[in-house]
């Protein structure tokens, strides 16, 4: 669930903010006509995204990297036309170019991110338990909650942007946001070139010496991708603060107390809307910082437990591992390699799941216990406790043991044989 709260927010936040501002600016400039043309752009973006998601999900005809390369070009082009048209907003011709470039930019922003988000529910890892499993449902809940919050945020931000004075303030925020996004897209646009993608068939190939700044900027967008989101969030916060500040007190003239009360009620409504949007913004900030950090944290392995050595054998008292929890042990081989192994008593059984703290897929990443389940620290796969001790796949590499005198007995030779997993 947590994963989709922050991934959906991270994917869509910038697009939602810019599209919302664009809708407000075109509505304020050109009324119903501006809203209609931009609305068509939004619908076109959503419908095209749905088509793209459907084709992508059901065929191998979509190469995302190719499409993204051209979408970046469209975003850059529409941004440029929109900003240039804004500079000549008084001219008659600018109405058409502003509306069309605005609608085109919004459609491209939506089309860039939405197909991937639409496909998430079809790619949830349900551990083979299908669409009705709790694995699926909790992921779906996170995905839906993030989408609902983004829609609510967009609605509130739109109301604020529609009433901020002057129009130039919202236009300035939109322009700044579009430029921030364009700077990001500019770096990403060159990624296939820098990475020598063969499909581009460009005659000029990237080299550090000749075009180092392009590679440097691309890598800046890679290392600092969150910076572009935070800058957009800061602009959104500024929009909301302006809206709140402009509605603290009644500045318009009023003729009677009833009219005054009406104006105060209107101000209160906008203050509340700004506060609501700010709360959503803070929530998104929480998703992208605290929740993301928690969800992507590297789990520390629990400390190895004690055992006794008996000649060339290692003895682990059964009473120490009978609690159905994961127990980890570590022994240093004569070659100086620390070999780890795990023991967990199987549910409803007197037998034990025993294996090296490593698997053939993820190496010696190790396992940890989460809510009573054994989970791979590398790939987050939840293990079936009953199959721990069986060979293959994500299972811990089996380790032979014997039960003797109330102890689990391990041969040091078997641990030495497993040391290659821990080199």
């Amino acid at each position, binding site marked *: 669930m947590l994963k989709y709260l922050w991934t959906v927010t991270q994917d869509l936040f910038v697009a939602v903010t810019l599209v919302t501002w664009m809708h407000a600016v075109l509505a304020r400039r050109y009324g119903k006509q501006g809203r209609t043309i931009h609305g068509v752009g939004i619908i076109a973006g959503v419908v095209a995204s749905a088509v793209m998601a459907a084709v992508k999900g059901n065929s191998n005809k979509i*190469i995302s990297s190719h499409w993204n390369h051209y979408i970046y070009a469209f975003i850059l082009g529409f941004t440029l036309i929109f900003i240039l048209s804004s500079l000549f907003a008084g001219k008659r011709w600018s109405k058409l170019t502003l509306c069309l470039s605005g609608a085109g930019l919004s459609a491209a922003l939506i089309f860039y991110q939405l197909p991937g988000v639409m496909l998430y529910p079809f790619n949830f890892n349900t551990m083979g338990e299908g669409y009705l499993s709790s694995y699926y449902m909790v992921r779906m809940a996170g995905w839906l909650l993030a989408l609902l919050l983004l829609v609510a945020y967009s609605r509130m931000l739109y109301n604020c942007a529609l009433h901020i004075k002057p129009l130039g303030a919202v236009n300035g925020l939109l322009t700044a946001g579009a430029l921030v996004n364009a700077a990001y897209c500019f770096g990403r646009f060159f990624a296939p070139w820098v*990475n020598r993608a063969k499909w581009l068939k460009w005659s000029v190939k990237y080299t550090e010496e000749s075009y180092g700044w392009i590679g440097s900027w*691309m890598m800046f967008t890679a*290392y600092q991708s969150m910076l572009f989101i935070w800058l957009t969030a800061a602009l959104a916060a500024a929009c909301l603060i302006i809206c709140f500040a402009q509605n603290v007190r009644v500045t318009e003239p009023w003729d009677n107390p009833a009219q005054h009360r009406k104006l105060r009620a209107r101000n209160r409504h906008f203050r509340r809307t700004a506060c609501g949007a700010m709360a959503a913004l803070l929530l998104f900030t929480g998703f992208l910082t605290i929740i993301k950090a928690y969800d992507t944290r590297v789990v520390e392995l629990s400390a190895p437990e004690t055992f006794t050595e008996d000649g060339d054998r290692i003895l682990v008292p059964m009473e120490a591992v009978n609690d159905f929890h994961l127990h980890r042990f570590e022994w240093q081989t004569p070659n100086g390699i620390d070999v780890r192994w795990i023991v967990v008593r199987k549910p409803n059984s007197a037998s034990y799941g025993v294996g090296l703290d490593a698997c053939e897929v993820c190496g010696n990443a190790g396992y940890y216990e989460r809510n009573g389940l054994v989970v791979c620290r590398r790939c987050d796969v939840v293990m079936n406790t009953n199959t721990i001790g069986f060979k293959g796949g994500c299972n811990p590499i089996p380790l032979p043991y014997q039960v003797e005198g109330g102890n689990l007995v391990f041969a040091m030779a078997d641990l030495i044989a497993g040391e290659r997993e821990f080199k």
Partner: protein
Amino acid sequence: MKKFLALLLAVMMLSVSAFALAEEEAGFDEYELGVEGEQEVGFMTMAMVYFQPVDMAPADLAAPREGSDLHIEVDLTANENPYGFPVDGWVPYLSIDYVIKDTEGKEVVTGSMMPMAASDGPHYGNNIALPEGEYSVTLSIKSPSENGYLLHVDDETGVEADGFWTEPLEATWTGWKFVKEW
């Protein structure tokens, strides 16, 4: 006006569908990893490539697509025949471990490649989770004997070599600028 807008919308939708369906290539594009390109490693030629994370089966034998950022592959062929593997053919039964380091030399991800086949043939690979950034990748290639693969060594039927290599072969690719392009 409404008819024009409806027409515009329909044209955009159809364009996307048509462009999508007109793509003749398969749905993935391999990216070369590192600046070294193909390398001679022992008796093999190796190249590393990457692209979007993929689904693999059986699902419990590989890292899942969810939570992974890319699929990393090493494509390799034998260019000599000391161990009996056909020249220009794929070499099975290898154990290949990888270490990915950032530009400061800090280990970011380590793991093992699994043998598998895609539409373009067999290779060693895995899905991995990796933040965007610049990296180097070092492979440690252990011999097939570690997976129970034997060689004929008698005079009549034996291969050229007396046995497999005992110390892992190593190869490093550097200057890999990883940006998720999918």
